[in-house]
């Protein structure tokens, strides 16, 4: 029952983040087009548009990370696949997901520390926009947290599958 809610809420959150990712993709495209046209027709350039796009690249990547993970969209090298037995494959999956969880834990924990530090020192980007770096970094712990939960779900799903069998 608990798993049922966890499942639904996680899916919902991932979808929302993916939707934001798509909006960012849209925003990137049209902000750049806007910059090009404004320069070509009015001779005005908005230097911060390029900079904002750099941040969007980071947001996009981390917000979309969990959604892509859910759809098994992250590339693996599967050359040993055909050689392995079904049981082995199940255990190796658990190992992989655990490693994924470790990676995400580090990203969440140290990402949070870096974000808090940037916030405390009021660090700005080295550009003229002087964008607060805490707002950039925060995408890393947030996105990684959802990826962490997605790895957890994958492990849990393996258990539920074997119960069904």
């Amino acid at each position: 029952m608990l798993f049922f809610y966890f499942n639904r809420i996680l899916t919902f959150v991932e979808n929302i983040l993916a939707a934001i990712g798509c909006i960012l993709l849209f925003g990137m495209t049209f902000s750049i087009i806007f910059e090009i046209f404004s320069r070509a027709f009015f001779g005005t350039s908005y230097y911060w548009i390029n900079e904002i796009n750099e941040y969007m690249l980071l947001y996009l990547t981390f917000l979309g990370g969990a959604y892509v993970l859910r759809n098994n969209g992250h590339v693996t090298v599967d050359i040993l696949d055909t050689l392995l037995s079904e049981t082995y494959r199940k255990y190796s999956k658990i190992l992989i997901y655990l490693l994924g969880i470790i990676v995400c834990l580090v990203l969440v924990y140290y990402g949070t520390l870096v974000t808090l530090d940037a916030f405390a020192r009021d660090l700005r980007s080295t550009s003229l926009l002087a964008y607060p770096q805490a707002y950039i970094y925060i995408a890393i712990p947030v996105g990684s947290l959802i990826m962490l939960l997605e790895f957890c779900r994958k492990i849990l799903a393996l258990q539920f599958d074997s119960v069904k069998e």
Partner: protein
Amino acid sequence: DGVETVADNEGDSEEVYNFELVAYMGFDNILTKDVVPMWIEKIEESTAGRVQIEWVGGHEVIPREEQFDAVSNGIVDVSFNASAFFSHIMPEADTLHLSPYTPHEERENGYFNYLSEKFENHNLKYLGRYISGMGFYLWSNEKIETLEDLKGLSFRTSPVYQDILDRLGVNPVSIPPAEIYTAIDRNMVDGYGYPILGPYEDGLTEVTNYIINEPFLNNNNAIFFNMDVFQTLPSELQETLLKATEEFEYDMLVHFEKESERQWENSLKHVEIIDLGDEDSERFQEVVNDVYWEKFESDIPDEVDVIKELFDITN
């Protein structure tokens, strides 16, 4: 407890100290490629080999904006870095852009000590700097004879001089370094700001017509050490390091003068030099100064008076 550490280490005159150095540019850049090895050699010679320094690389090793913290946290021991890449952490560093002094004058008139204190607040030991008296120039494809001619042109910008361009009526366009060549070649922008060192090496002079002979701001470059690590050195080695870097500053004045001469010669193969005339030159420098003092007023209001006094500016 710094004294204690020194005392502890005093007796051991055989120990060899190994340090790692990163620079804001890599093994290939004209501002670092010969200079860093020259400093290392100087240090190793003057300490009779007791201090060994390994240059691990440039921003391919640690991103240049992170090197300040990396030295401060002890990930590496020394960095060669320009204020543009750490003034977001230590805004006082940007005053280097306006210093009217040579490095040795700075050591005498207190500005060196002022900066040392600021570095110390970040757990860093300021050893000195190696580029001075070398400004930025506007490189242009349009012939500029007066400041009026600049109005309405588009120039590739950098945070260092963006406000200056703005104030001069130039439209600043942001372009990644790798694409400056194409942007100039295709007339996407009319020019860019750059020191005399660089455009020839990067091939940019091939597609540039003019350089405005009006250097502005100082290129600057600081050498700083992790404070804890520095203090583990016996006091006589600390002295030697400071002394050697001071000498190095003299060497670099000569080195970059020669280098500049060579680059002027090279650049003028492709590029024509143009002058603004006395009156506009003065106005131009006024804009530069205004922009930077306003910036200091807003970023470091408490420091402005101190710096004005150090720079011997009265108003």
